[in-house]
């Protein structure tokens, strides 16, 4: 199976969802930092970081070149690590996060979409790469 573009078919929907998150996370981080940065600097820097990761992932998936594929893979990986680490920290150590970020509580405030999105992104990148090693696919053994 040949490599297929990351920005067509289901990938097109994925890019759309990423774009929505890139837009809303950027707007939110911008407002937080501009209006009350002093209240929770760590949370707001994390918000801005999350927004940046969403933008990079959106562009990476939408461009669909070999290089942008790698960029998107890195962005989705950072995003998955981010949501797991920040999600866990916000649960076990809530005092560190006086104000919510997109990734607090594993993205609970956003219907857990922030948790599901990087997983879908990585699965889609892998699937559209069309390597012979598909999940469950038979690979000849010597």
């Amino acid at each position, binding site marked *: 199976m040949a490599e297929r573009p990351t920005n*067509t078919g289901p990938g*097109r*929907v994925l*890019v*759309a*969802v990423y*774009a929505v998150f890139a837009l809303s996370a950027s*707007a939110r981080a*911008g407002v937080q930092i501009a*209006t009350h940065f002093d209240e929770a600097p760590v949370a707001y820097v994390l918000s801005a970081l999350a927004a940046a990761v969403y933008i990079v992932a959106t562009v990476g998936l939408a461009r669909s070149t070999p290089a942008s594929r790698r960029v998107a893979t890195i962005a989705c990986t950072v995003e998955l690590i981010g949501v797991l680490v920040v999600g866990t920290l916000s649960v076990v150590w809530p005092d560190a996060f006086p104000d919510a970020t997109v990734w607090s509580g594993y993205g609970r405030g956003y219907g857990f979409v922030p948790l599901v999105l990087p997983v879908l992104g990585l699965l889609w990148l892998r699937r559209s790469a069309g390597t012979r090693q598909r999940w469950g696919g038979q690979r000849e053994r010597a």
Partner: protein
Amino acid sequence: MLATGLIFLAAAYGAFALVTAVLGRAPREYFVIASALLSIVVVVQVVVAIVMLVAGDRPDELGTFVGYLVVALVLVPAGTLWALAERSRWGPTVLAVACLALVVVVIRLNDLWSTVNG
């Protein structure tokens, strides 16, 4: 009132797009017209909100409110452009996502506005 109507319209259009997607159809020309009509309602709602802001009503989180207004304006036109280039069932799915996002944004705008004079 207007916001409730807008939520209903966006939800209905999103559901219609989803049905089209499930039936496996590609986006058609009438989606452009429907998206344009929905966008006009969004513009009217945003203009009403701006007029009320200028008139002196202030929600608690003004910055967030204005941010959501901008996002609301962008969603349907951008979603439609992105959807039309996809000649498969995934095109209408993109529109459904945009409509769902619009519903969420309008509900949030309503929440934020409820702090006016509160």
